[in-house]
């Protein structure tokens, strides 16, 4: 029934979104790099502030890019142009998700491994490593949720609701995870301690991302109208 995905078409669509949003992407780089430079000073207060700044940049740019690439396509009536090309809904959906997640994943990977690296330096609170990893993956879920909300609904209101829920969720879950016995007990220790609870939370989070993407493709496949 469905024709196979043409990856060349997906690549063209991704490059199109990156080109059209190049100033947003490039504009976020100096802020992100500046924050990363502060992280590398190794001072505790600066570290915390710059991590918060980095998170804001990554999630903020991710959310903004998701809004612009998914909702504006319909709002500015360019969707008819894209869908008049030899593009299927699967290629369109795949391109939107990848265009957004790749842009997110590059700084996210840098931030995550940078933060974990800093935490593993001598004298740092090594016990924070599981919690940091859990919260980093939570950021990935948050962005995925915003992207899929944009792709599925193509609605500013629903995507804004997605951003609101994600922001609220990350704070609530951050608080909850910091107080779960299996995680909080070892957080401020000098050794990395991966408890079964920490593993369970991390695995659940990691499974949530493909689940979200799978649900997106399923819902898109059920749509009868693409304009």
């Amino acid at each position, binding site marked *: *029934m*469905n*024709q196979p995905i*043409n990856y060349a*078409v997906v690549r*063209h669509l991704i490059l*199109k979104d990156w*080109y*059209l949003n190049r100033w947003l992407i490039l504009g976020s780089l100096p802020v992100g790099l500046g924050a990363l430079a502060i992280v590398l000073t190794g001072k505790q207060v600066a570290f915390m502030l710059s991590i918060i700044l980095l998170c804001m940049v990554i999630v903020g740019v991710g959310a903004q890019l998701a809004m612009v690439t998914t909702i504006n396509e319909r709002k*500015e*009536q*360019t969707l*008819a*142009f894209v*869908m*008049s*090309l*030899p*593009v*299927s809904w699967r290629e369109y959906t795949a391109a939107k998700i990848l265009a957004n997640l790749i842009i997110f994943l590059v700084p996210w990977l840098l931030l995550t491994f940078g933060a974990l690296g800093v935490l593993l330096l001598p004298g740092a609170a090594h016990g924070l490593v599981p919690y940091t990893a859990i919260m980093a993956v939570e950021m990935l879920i948050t962005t995925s949720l915003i992207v899929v909300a944009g792709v599925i609904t193509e609605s500013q209101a629903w995507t804004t609701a997605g951003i609101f829920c994600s922001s609220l969720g990350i704070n609530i879950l951050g608080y909850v995870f910091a107080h779960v016995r299996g995680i909080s007990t070892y957080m401020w220790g000098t050794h990395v301690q991966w408890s079964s609870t920490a593993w369970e939370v991390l695995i659940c989070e990691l499974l949530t991302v493909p689940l979200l993407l799978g649900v997106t493709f399923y819902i898109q496949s059920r749509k*009868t*109208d*693409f*304009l």
Partner: protein
Amino acid sequence: MNNLSIRMEGVSKRYPHFLLDNICLDLPEGSILGFIGANGAGKSTTIRILMGLVRQDTGSVEVLGHPMPTEQIAAKQDIGFVSEDMRLYGAATLAWHMNFVRSMYPRWDQAYADTLVRRFDLKPQQKVKGLSHGQRVKAALLLALARQPRLLILDEPTTGLDPVARREVIGELMSVITDEGRTVFFSSHNTLEVEQISDRIAFIDRGRLIALDEKEDLLDRWRRVRLVVPNGIRLPEIPGVIDVAGTERLPVLTTSQFDPAVVSLCQDRGATVEAVDSMTLEEIFVANVQSRRELQTA
């Protein structure tokens, strides 16, 4: 001319406040179909179904031999589509758009695109947001034509254009259409431009296809007959009369099946035929729609 570019069989699509009802439409290769309907008649829904962008509830659709929407990618390789509600990316230039579309179409003809740039008087390095509405329509036409489509689908491309720009676009469209001899599906509520371009005509009203015919046959069959009927004279049964206006003594008959024999038939009964007027496509469309609506409400 035997191959069909478009084949719609019993196509229906239901929305909460609109029903596209049992559309059956065949369009032979090389034809230019003018698809006329009032706003909200179902033109855009029909076209979206043809493009595979909307899935019909019932019925089958084949475009260039491909069942839709399942084989829409293969079909869209050979379709050029321009719609009134389709926009290009404002922040990008026409040159960027040409490169983008070219990357999707192996048959993209750059030399032809350059010719159209000159013919349409466009500037490739200009951003789309800086173009006038007329230039944007021409840019969209260029992007559709340079991919060398076998089927061109135009959904009210001239809506919103000022008269000068509309004339320019129609003029250019006629010249590029005659250049190529491709199949064209042209939707509009402007009957004058449809009459200029098309060789076949379809009328759609309230989601139903109410006429599909060769343009010349349609124009030949519809006539307005002005009569003088003396007192006591009864007119004969005239086939295809869909409207009788005027007075009992000076009736004006509108018929959709005019036959010259009707004139002598009326004269034989003692009536005088004052005039047999041809009708414009707009008059035919309006008369057709009104009579159908009256039949529906009766």
